[in-house]
């Protein structure tokens, strides 16, 4: 048996934000300078990346990711073409700007899996990319995936890259949600009135070799992903989902709350997100720990935020500093937190980094300076996995709307919300209901012990086209009820709400079903991160569906 891997180190990194590259971003933050300003083309205060020399044949987003990975490769000497390296890509919307005025025919690069494939192909990557699209936790979620892969012994290095760019698609959607502030955002402040969007890209090497760690070495010592199982867009009223993620990440790192020196939260500065976080931080016993949000400097950078903010926070650990929270001056959350308004000296060795997003998902990781962890990492293959049931949503000649309505009626389980869902969500909902049958409690499973891991090709492109048509036609106002479904993981979120699933929830995008979802779900159970999982393929596009789910559990 292969030697058990005990550590996952943070290696070379590269970021670009509205404040520039890593060095420029850090020096601006030190001077309390923000990259947020009024952008006339998007009509809102946000953070844009300065234009960069395009690589011929690649989109702006792909160019950004390629440059970031090139930098990581150059610094570390590792190569995506090497068989010991995997590439994990995180993005909420990829090249979504490419579907503007495309009618019903999205170009191939608008498919997120194809975008990832093009990036991987640029580097002659040895393996297919692993693409995570988990709303605003995507970046942290991708780091957790990378850590799990390394601990399971699948490979020795993972390059995680996260990126999202702003376009009318995203800006108008958040606008319809009335969640964008007219000023640079003010996390946790009593006068906060919404978020500021931002563009960013980050790439980070995760490695099992300490010699490849950036000095002084920082370890990704814990990580977890959970779900609120409460609402697809409204943050939990209790904060329990985020609390479970923080608790699980700290357990894996083997630390207790008193050892945490800094918390870098999601801190979007929307009324309800910050409120929810304050409750979760209290539940986790971290209310006295210096805490910051970086959103006031670089904005909410969506699928990049988890990677970029982890890179910045890891560097803060190395430099012994807790950055102040730009925009914060007076406490405005119900459970008071130790929000650091100004930069201060870091006292300790562990940082908790969190994220929360649409679909009810939450994620947390623990970053630890070398030699300071005494954790109990699960053995990578401590548990056997068995498959107990499968369900394939039947095909039909009927139009999807009619077909799924009949299938839903057959369940004899009325739910007013069903008819409001996107077609992808409806398909996932009905299939999961058939697969799971009774309640999880009857199976002796607690909500946080059950995971849901899905994959598909089209992500939420079917709904994305609907949202884009509203934008292109300009005759109807943008619909929040449509926009909320322009994230594939919201379909998983609907299943979580219905069945009270609060464990890991990860959504992968790949050009065809190579079994990534099931493989990852098996890894979660084998590694002791979950006791049971709903997993499989769940695709919907242009009236056609392909939904094949499995229930697997610990033997």
């Amino acid at each position, binding site marked *: 048996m292969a030697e058990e891997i005990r550590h996952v180190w943070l290696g070379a990194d590269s970021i670009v934000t509205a404040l520039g590259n890593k060095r420029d971003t850090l020096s601006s933050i030190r001077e309390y300078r923000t990259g947020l300003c009024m952008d006339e083309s998007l009509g809102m205060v946000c953070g844009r990346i300065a234009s960069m020399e395009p690589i011929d044949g690649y989109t702006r987003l792909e160019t950004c990711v390629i440059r970031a990975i090139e930098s990581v490769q150059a610094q570390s000497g590792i190569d995506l073409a090497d068989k010991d390296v995997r590439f994990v890509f995180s993005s909420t919307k990829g090249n979504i700007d490419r579907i503007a005025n495309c009618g019903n025919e999205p170009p191939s690069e608008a498919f997120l899996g194809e975008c990832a494939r093009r990036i991987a192909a640029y580097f002659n990557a040895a393996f297919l990319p692993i693409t995570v699209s988990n709303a605003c936790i995507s970046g942290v979620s991708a780091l957790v995936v990378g850590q799990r892969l390394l601990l399971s012994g699948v490979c020795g290095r993972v390059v995680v890259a996260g990126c999202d760019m702003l376009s009318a698609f995203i800006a108008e959607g958040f606008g319809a949600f009335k969640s964008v502030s007219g000023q640079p955002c003010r996390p946790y402040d009593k006068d906060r009135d919404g978020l500021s969007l931002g563009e960013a890209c980050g790439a980070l090497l995760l490695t099992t070799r300490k010699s490849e760690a950036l000095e002084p070495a920082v370890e990704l010592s814990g990580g977890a992903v959970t779900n609120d199982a409460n609402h697809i867009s409204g943050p939990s009223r209790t904060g329990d989902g985020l609390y479970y993620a923080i608790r699980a990440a700290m357990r894996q790192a083997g630390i207790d709350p008193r050892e945490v020196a800094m918390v870098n939260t999601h801190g979007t500065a929307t009324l309800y997100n910050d409120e929810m976080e304050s409750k979760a931080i209290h539940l986790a016993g971290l209310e006295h720990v210096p805490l910051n949000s970086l959103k006031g400097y670089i904005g909410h950078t969506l699928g990049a935020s988890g990677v970029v903010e982890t890179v910045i926070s890891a560097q803060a650990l190395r430099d012994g500093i807790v950055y102040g929270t730009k925009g914060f001056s007076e406490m405005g959350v119900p459970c008071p937190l130790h929000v650091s308004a100004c930069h201060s000296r870091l006292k300790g060795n562990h940082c908790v980094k969190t994220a929360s997003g649409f679909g009810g998902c939450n994620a947390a990781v623990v970053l630890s300076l070398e030699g300071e962890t005494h954790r109990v990492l699960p053995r990578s293959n401590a548990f056997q996995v068995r498959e107990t049931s499968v369900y394939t949503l039947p095909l039909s000649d009927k139009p999807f709307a009619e077909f799924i309505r009949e299938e839903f009626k057959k369940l004899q389980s009325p739910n007013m919300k069903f008819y*409001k869902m996107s077609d992808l969500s409806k398909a996932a909902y009905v299939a999961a209901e058939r697969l799971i049958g009774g309640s999880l409690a009857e199976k002796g499973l607690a909500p946080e012990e059950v995971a849901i891991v899905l994959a598909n090709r089209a992500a939420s492109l079917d709904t994305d086209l609907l949202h884009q048509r509203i934008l292109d036609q300009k005759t109807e106002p943008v*619909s929040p009820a449509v926009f909320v479904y322009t994230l594939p993981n919201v379909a998983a979120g609907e299943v979580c709400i219905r069945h009270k699933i609060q464990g890991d929830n990860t959504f992968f995008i790949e050009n065809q079903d190579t079994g990534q979802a099931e493989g990852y779900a098996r890894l979660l159970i084998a590694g002791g991160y979950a006791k049971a999982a709903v997993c499989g393929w769940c695709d919907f596009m242009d009236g056609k569906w392909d939904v094949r789910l499995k229930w697997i559990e610990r033997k």
Partner: protein
Amino acid sequence: MESLIRELKEHLIRELNLEDITAEDIDSKAPLFGEEGLGLDSIDALEIILILEKHYGIKLQNSAEAKPVFYSVETLAGYIAKNRR
């Protein structure tokens, strides 16, 4: 007022995808949000803001201010009657 209430119910059913519900099923005095009544949520609230804009030319800035107005079909209709253009 009766016809406005009727019309409003039709808008709600169509725009909020309230399938299997007819205008007769909606109690004008019952709460729109929460566990009882129609069980609408925060996304529906944003959609109702759009209904007010689209059909009645009323602009509401955020759903929090609108709480008493959004209580029931009746309160909503009363507000529309006063503010429509």
